[in-house]
Every structure is written in C-alpha cells, then in structure tokens.
C-alpha cells in the first residue's frame, strides 16, 4: 500500500510551492475518481508518491464557469455535474455539458472534475473531445506565474500532460462559438451508464445564409494517440450543403485519417466502420438542430 502525506493548500501559490518542494513526488487530488483508483492499483507512476495535495478546499479560486466577453472560463475544479448543469455551457457550448453528463455515474460526476479528467490524460475522457473541437486553451499556474497554451499541445501522450513540477492546471478558456453554431457529442459505449467510451466524437456546424456549411469542427475520441481535430474532414464540409452523402464522406475521411496516423491495428476492423458511423451521426444530429 502506498504511503504518503496529505496536504491542503490555502492559496494557489501555496499549491505551486508544495509541488515544487516535492519535485514531482507530490500529486494533486481533486475529485479523486482517477488518482484514488490508480494509487490502490499501485500504478507505477505514483510509486514514489510523497504526498497528495488536495485542491478541493480552493473552491472559490478554482470552481467556476463564467462568461468573460467572448470567452468562457471553466475552473479546473468544476465537476462534471457542474458542467452538465451549467446554463452558460448549455447556451454556448452544449456538447461539453452533454459529454460531461455521460461520464461514469452520478457519484463520479459529483466528485470528478474537468481538470482532473484532462490531467489524467486518458484518450477516452469524454469532455476531452468537445474541448479539442473548441480549441480550448489551458491556463497553467506555477511558481513563475501563469502561462497559457493550447489543450492539444498540453496533452502529450496517454497519461502525460505538459506540466512542470511546480505547475497545475487552473482553468480552461474557450471562445464562444459564433451565433448560429450547433454542437453535438456522440458516444459509443458498451452500456448506457458507467460506460467508458469505445469511441466518441464532438462536432460543431454552422451554415451560412445560403444553407451551406460555413464552419465545421470534428474531433473524434479514442482513435488517435493524442487528441485532435480532423481538419481535412472539416475542410471537406465547407461550402457544401448538408446531406447524408456529405456526412459519409466526412466519416470516411476521419477513418482514413485514423489509419494514416495509427496504421492498421487489431481493432481497426471494428473501429473503422464504427467511427464512420458515429461521425455521421453527430453531423446529422447537429444539422438537424439547425433545422
């Protein structure tokens, strides 16, 4: 059984100080829904864990979802339940709320946080793809102050994000989508609750006055080594009118891109047709919302 100390920090700077002092051997805990499982399973990453640093007492600093001009700021301590219920998210970026609502179970959503979910860096994390589709930025707090970077760059590989020893994730910043844009998140799991995504996808669509697609985002989950949009599939939509055929082409482009990036694997035989299906679904459902 791993043995470690437990600290609470009173301020954001104190968090960085403690992290720095332990030189990578302190680990942040928020909802605990991932780290507590990993510690119990004696995950090699935390073998030399010296302390757990609990952020949940910094709610006033880190738990918020707010609009600031054209931006939405989401504090890292916001729980999945917060995201699911946020009126701001519902209004501007509803697919993030939908993705959060499919995470685990009510108990997990009540404790698990968006910051933890992203820093755990599982490719199957449901809120990951809407944030990627939105080209979210992350704000990182460290001893030297704050820095900002793209979420896509922040996510280095499965289980690894770009944080220095003294740093932690403070918030996500996303630009509001243009008026008239619609979003959709589709998840394929093996059951209807407590499901880990076998595949998922987030899309954004907008039409111009003529009814042609003027804006598109497609971010599939669970198929790339690091999360990403499929820009070639997005470009293919621009300027065209919504149609079943078009969604098929986009789906095909996503699966082609998957194979280009990861090659043919044992699971490709299934993932290829299935990812095409859910990409088509997401686009069709989004288009339906435009009406």
């Amino acid at each position, binding site marked *: 059984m791993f043995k470690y100390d*437990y600290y609470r920090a009173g301020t954001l700077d104190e968090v960085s100080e403690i992290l720095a002092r332990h030189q990578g051997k302190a680990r942040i805990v928020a909802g605990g829904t991932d780290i507590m499982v990993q510690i119990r399973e004696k995950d090699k990453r935390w073998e030399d864990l010296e302390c*757990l640093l609990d952020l949940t007492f910094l709610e006033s600093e880190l738990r918020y979802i707010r609009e600031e001009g054209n931006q939405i700021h989401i504090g890292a301590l916001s729980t999945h339940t917060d995201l699911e219920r946020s009126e701001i998210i519902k209004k501007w970026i509803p697919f993030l709320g939908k993705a959060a609502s499919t995470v685990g179970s*009510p108990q997990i959503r009540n404790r698990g946080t968006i910051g933890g979910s992203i820093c755990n860096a599982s490719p199957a994390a449901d809120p990951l793809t809407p944030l990627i589709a939105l080209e979210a930025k992350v704000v990182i707090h460290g001893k030297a102050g704050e820095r900002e970077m793209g979420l896509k760059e922040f996510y280095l590989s499965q289980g690894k994000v770009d944080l220095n020893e003294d740093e932690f994730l403070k918030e996500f910043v996303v630009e509001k989508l243009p008026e008239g844009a619609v979003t959709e998140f589709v998840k394929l799991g093996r059951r209807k609750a*407590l499901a880990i995504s076998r595949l998922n996808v987030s899309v954004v669509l907008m039409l111009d006055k003529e009814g042609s697609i003027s804006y598109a985002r497609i971010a599939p989950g669970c198929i790339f080594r690091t999360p990403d949009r499929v820009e070639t599939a997005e470009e293919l939509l621009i300027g065209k009118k919504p149609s079943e055929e078009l969604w098929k082409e986009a789906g095909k482009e996503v699966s082609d891109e998957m194979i280009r990036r990861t090659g043919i694997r044992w699971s490709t035989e299934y993932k290829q047709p299935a990812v095409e299906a859910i990409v088509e679904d997401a686009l069709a459902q989004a288009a339906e919302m435009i009406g």
Partner: protein
Amino acid sequence: MEKIKVNFTVNKKPVTVEVNPNERLLDVLRDTLRLTGTKEGCAVGECGACTVILDGKAVTSCLVPIGAVEGREVVTIEGVGADGKLDPIQEAILENHALQCGFCTPGFVMSAKALLDENPDATKEEIRRAISGNLCRCTGYEQLTIAIYEAAQQLKEAQKAQI
C-alpha cells in the same frame, strides 16, 4: 506518513478522527467509526455500494481521501430515517420487495435520497439515471425503480400536507 486529524460531521454529529492520510472516507466510516452499513464492493468507484451523501451529493466513499472531508457533512445509511422510523425510501423498498441479498441496498438508498432531496419530482427515467452508479446483481433494478418512484410520490404528498 504522519497521521492527520480530520473534523467533520457524520449524520449530524461532529466527529474528529486521527488516521493515516492514505485512508479513505470508507475506511474511516467502517473501521474507525464502525458505521458498517456503508459497504465496500469494488474499491474503484464502480459498484456504488459505498455511496454516502457528502455535502448534499451522492459520492462513492471509496474514492474520497479522508482529508477531503474536513469541515464537511457526511450522511450514511445509519443517518437515514428519523426518530427510529424508516425513511419513506426504505419503507417503499420493503413494500416492493426491492432487495434480495441486501448488500447493495444501503448504497441505493443513499443515491435515491440524494436525488429526492434535490428533486422530489423525479421521473422514473431520472430515477434510473440517479441509481445508474449502483450495481445490483439480484433485483434487475425493476422493483427498486418502482419503490423509489413511490417514495417520491409519498414525499410529495407529505410536503403538500405540510403546506
């Protein structure tokens, strides 16, 4: 690893425990406070047998480091029902034969209570969703869903009567 002191309330009573920091809320409830109605089924937050209500929300106590409950309010199955009387949720579960082995039952009661405390108008669909983090291998969930729905109706009636 130094022991830590944690103050919190359990079922409205203040408690202070001095425990190892790597203990979970579940360990403290069971091994220290001997509130064994909260069960350990999987220890990874999937089965829901250890569900308690933390500051009004259902959580799996196997994933809560004990330090995290400092100053917070915890309600366990032992704190459900008042004056020696069963809660309407418990009554309805009995009435509907919505339990068999009973091991998961306290967890279901807690999830249902968290739901109905917040939303007494819950539909059956919302109930199914609220208990979707509680696994039961005996009942097939059917009688449980009906029971919780009936309890909701009763609670609403009682609220109306009070007004």
